[in-house]
């Protein structure tokens, strides 16, 4: 039986999204959450935090989500950790692309803080 989803690393530069996502993941989902504001911070933190899943914003300044994803894949500590992208208004063709490059799934923004944790749990269970 697969272990339950417990630890999530949130990688998001927008502090508004950070705040509502953290509330959703902790108070609604009961997860333990690590927060990073950038791709480089995520690469630095992922080994020590050891998440079960990484929730990764696509549009970030500097190192964007896709570049961060590739870098996470290249790190032994994070190569096999499932990544769920978070992006605004994802289209069907974008979803297919993200999955083709190895993402587990995509969450659209804006998200409903009440249902986002359950969506992540469902994605985790399907893996």
């Amino acid at each position, binding site marked *: 039986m697969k272990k339950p989803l417990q630890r999530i690393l949130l990688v998001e530069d927008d502090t*508004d*999204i950070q705040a509502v*996502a953290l509330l959703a993941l902790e108070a609604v989902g009961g997860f333990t959450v690590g927060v990073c504001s950038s791709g480089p911070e995520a690469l630095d933190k992922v080994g020590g935090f050891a998440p079960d899943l990484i929730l990764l914003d696509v549009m970030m300044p500097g190192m964007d989500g896709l570049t961060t994803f590739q870098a996470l894949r290249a790190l032994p500590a994070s190569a096999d950790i499932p990544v769920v992208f978070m992006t605004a208004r994802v289209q069907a063709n974008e979803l297919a692309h993200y999955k083709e490059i190895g993402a587990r799934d995509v969450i659209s*923004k804006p*998200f409903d*803080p*009440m249902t986002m944790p359950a969506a992540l749990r469902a994605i985790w269970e399907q893996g």
Partner: protein
Amino acid sequence: MPKNPSEYTEGLGAIQEQYRQSLPERFQELSRVWRELDASKWDASAFHTFVRLTHRLAGSGGSYGFAPVSEAAHRLEVYARSVDGAHALSSAECAQIVKYLKQLGKVVNETQKR
């Protein structure tokens, strides 16, 4: 059902109120960036900032319970991304952006009515 219902309700209420109160300032910043874009001395970087600010509003509004803000900001973002921001926009393009900005301003004002 949230794992910690009271924590969620109180927490969400608090950050929703902060976000609501911040909306006029966010809109004013967006409007200011737009106003400062000068056709005679076009700043593509400033237009990129304008697009980024609309993107942030579009992505966050709905998550805080202000779906009309997300919708209006998204319409503006989609249009702004459809034009060539590397060069000064045409009068028609500017007029369309102003139209979308006004729509966004209207929904922001609605959030302040209590």
